């Protein structure tokens, strides 16, 4: 794996680099998906981050809650009907007490779904080699291109530098 990337001291510089790289994809013969951005913290308010925003996990959480609640309802009512006990004339499937189990199962469904949706959405776990730099931990933002065409590298480097890169580096080995 080969990558050419710039390290930026602030998100505004990173945004300029991302915009510059995106505008040059056809000219420099690389795909938009080859652009990589890595940071040690989220940067809200910038297009390169906000373009990834989605409300899908909320919908999945609601679905998980519905599934959990349904499972709780079936668990309580079906088992109470299958194994009936003497209730002294009171309801065999009491809504008040079963409601507590259903409530907890609703919450459990939402929690587990949120966890799964996060892992899938964020592409985790992923133990394949990925690009990073020790400077990212020190607050820099990495913006670069994975496996860029050899012929495009000088122009890529120029663009990364002109966007305000603190340094432009090349990586030839994946992070272990």
């Amino acid at each position, binding site marked *: 794996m080969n990558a050419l990337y710039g390290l930026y001291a602030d*998100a505004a510089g990173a945004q300029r680099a991302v915009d510059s790289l995106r505008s040059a994809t056809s000219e420099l013969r690389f795909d938009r998906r080859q652009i990589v951005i890595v940071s*040690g913290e989220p940067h809200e308010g910038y297009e390169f981050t*906000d373009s990834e925003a989605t409300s899908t996990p909320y919908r999945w959480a609601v679905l998980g809650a519905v599934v959990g609640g349904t499972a709780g309802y079936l668990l309580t009512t079906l088992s109470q009907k299958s194994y009936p006990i003497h209730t002294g004339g009171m309801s065999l499937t009491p809504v008040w007490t079963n409601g507590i189990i259903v409530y907890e199962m609703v*919450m459990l469904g939402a929690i587990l779904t949120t966890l799964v949706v996060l892992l899938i959405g*964020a592409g985790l776990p992923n*133990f394949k080699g*990925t690009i990073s730099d020790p400077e990212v*931990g020190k607050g820099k933002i990495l913006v670069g291109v994975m496996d860029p065409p050899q012929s495009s590298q000088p122009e890529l480097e120029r663009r990364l530098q002109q966007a305000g890169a603190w340094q432009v580096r090349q990586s030839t080995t994946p992070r*272990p």
Partner: protein
Amino acid sequence: MQPTAEQIEQDLLRPLFHSSGKYWFAVAIAASLLLAGVAAFFYQLYNGIGVWGLNSPVFWGFDITNFVFWIGISHAGTLISAILRLTNATWRRPVTRCAEAITVFSVLIGAIIPLCHIGRPWLAFWMIPYPSERHIWPNFRSPLAWDFFAISTYLTGSTTFLYLPTIPDFAAVRDASTGLRKKIYRVLALGWQGTPRQWQRLEVAMHIMAVVIVPVAVSVHTIVSWDFAMTPVPMWHSSIFGPYFVAGAIFSGIAALILAMALLRKFLHLEEYLRPIHFENLGKLLLTMSLLWFYFTFAERLTTWYGNSPPEMAVFWDSIRKNFAPLFWTMVVCNFIIPVPILAIKRLRTITGTAIASATVVVGMWLERFLIVVPSLEHKFLPYSWGTYRPTWVEDTLMASSFGMMALLYLLFSKFVPMISIWEMKVGLQSHGGVPVVLPAESKPVLEGPQ
């Protein structure tokens, strides 16, 4: 002076790579307490729970007191952290992980105690609903079955709530370490890279979790209160018990959090991060909860006194004038008389002041749990069945070991996980000088391609 991103990472990773002799001494003491508890547990397992001081009519003693106490302490973290996240309180950043860790460990300890209490813990799986050859199911009408579901959900939720924002910090430890440590953290970080997509998904997930975990936390302690309130025992059968328990839980939780933060600040040298403002803000919350606790306690006692029902009055007078009076008035002093002036006077609301107030609240809230459980059971409706309860050395040891276990888990956690979220502290740097710059979605590139 505001620390840089590099300084933040160095400061917060330091405790993971360097530990003092004091740290290992504290670990040794906590581990000794835990081992003593394990020995007492096996002694009890071999001889049966007759080695406890429980006898008719008091079948709940120290064990259930500790169970309620630890479940209450668990409200420190997840609830406080979730509310602070939802309200976007920026001062929360150094506080949340300390709080969330308290939650996970105290729920875990709270969940272990009923296993000791049932006497034959190897049959605990009977609580799990599955079609067995016994053809019986858990009775979903029983508050004990509700406990099982509520605590399982809460433990799952609070563990997830702790783990998710820790993933980027595991990645930071991975990148800063070598050898076996690097391999371990590589697995824990799940291959986290820090792409915008990952950050967005994490923030959304944390928002959903914060929304979900608040009602779960409230339900857990309400259900614990229903273990009592659903029973026709004097001074238990009360509709106020749900909110009373939740308020008490948040009260004791905040106190435990302040204590833990004060200790972490001192021993991990986190003075730059856990600042007086954090203790002052939490101190104000603790003051509010102290007043609320007094209001609930007064309302509960006043209603009982005004009703003048003989069985309830027997418990009432036993608590405040007779056998349990020393414990009752100690509780009032610890939960109200001492903390309120300390926390109300700004000059006293210092780190030391809030830590002292919190220490008394933790003691007072343990006494409150004991005074809910035992006096009522000693004085049930029929006077011929009245009895007394004295804990034995086995119960004392198990209680001490629960504190030892909490201390040990917390100490070990602080050795393996940064106690303050590194990435959230870095986010704080961005907004320190103002709101981040917002660029338009289709901002014009600075560079133009070759003409």
